[in-house]
């Protein structure tokens, strides 16, 4: 990859249906942009998984597969970071109410690890409840020269 394509800014924006195909599609777009940004295999896996988990939250828990609701997805690459924004049209939720999946009493739960994984894999993860409804998730991964 040329240094020029690494440093070129790139933005992709999509309005996606509330289904699992959109999860795959958003992950695919993300992997393409992140590869062009020069992230290594390890970071690509982490970024892809963080976007997949965020999209699943938007489609399944936010929009609840409602065909009348959309997920707004955008990814922006600039010189030093990759920023992904995912907005659903659901009722929103209180992120503080999500149980700690590492707590001994929650270790055997079969769900509730998504936000923990997103936070583990990205440099920044902001979750904001929107008015009158919806949730905006902003993920940032910084590029580090290796």
């Amino acid at each position: 990859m040329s240094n020029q394509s690494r440093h070129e800014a790139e933005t992709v924006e999509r309005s996606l249906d509330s289904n699992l195909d959109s999860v795959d599609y958003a992950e695919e777009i993300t992997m393409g942009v992140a590869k062009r940004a020069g992230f290594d295999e390890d970071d690509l896996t982490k970024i892809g998984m963080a976007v997949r988990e965020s999209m699943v939250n938007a489609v399944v828990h936010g929009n609840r597969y409602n065909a009348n609701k959309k997920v707004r997805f955008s990814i922006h690459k600039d010189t030093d970071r990759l920023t992904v924004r995912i907005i659903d049209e659901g009722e929103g939720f209180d992120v503080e109410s999500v149980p700690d999946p590492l707590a001994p009493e929650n270790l055997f739960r079969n769900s509730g690890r998504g936000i923990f994984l997103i936070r583990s894999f990205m440099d920044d993860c902001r979750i904001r409840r929107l008015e009158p409804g919806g949730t905006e998730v902003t993920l940032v991964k910084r590029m580090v020269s290796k």
Partner: protein
Amino acid sequence: MSVKLNSRQVGDVSVVDVAGRITLGEGSTALRDALRDMVAKNHKKILLNLGDVSYIDSSGIGELVSGFTSVTNSGGQLKLLGLTKRVKDLLQITKLYTVFDVHEDESSAIRSFA
């Protein structure tokens, strides 16, 4: 490819070879159905071979935990074989690695059920 599961019997151990992606939807449902079926058929010794699993998400991890719980509650044992680095890393950061009995070699995994 989503996920492909193949079951075989080695002595009294049921080995499930899993390949592909275990993600929300087809992948996690297939794993759940396979384990439920084994519990229903009273299989007590189950070895999940994850050597060809290229990707697993939080839903897939949830199915592993759920499968482990239901097999254990039915008086059986569920063990894992051949974790890729990616899957091992995920189980470690979610503090689940030590919950499972994990093996790298199939023969020793089979013997460990005795």
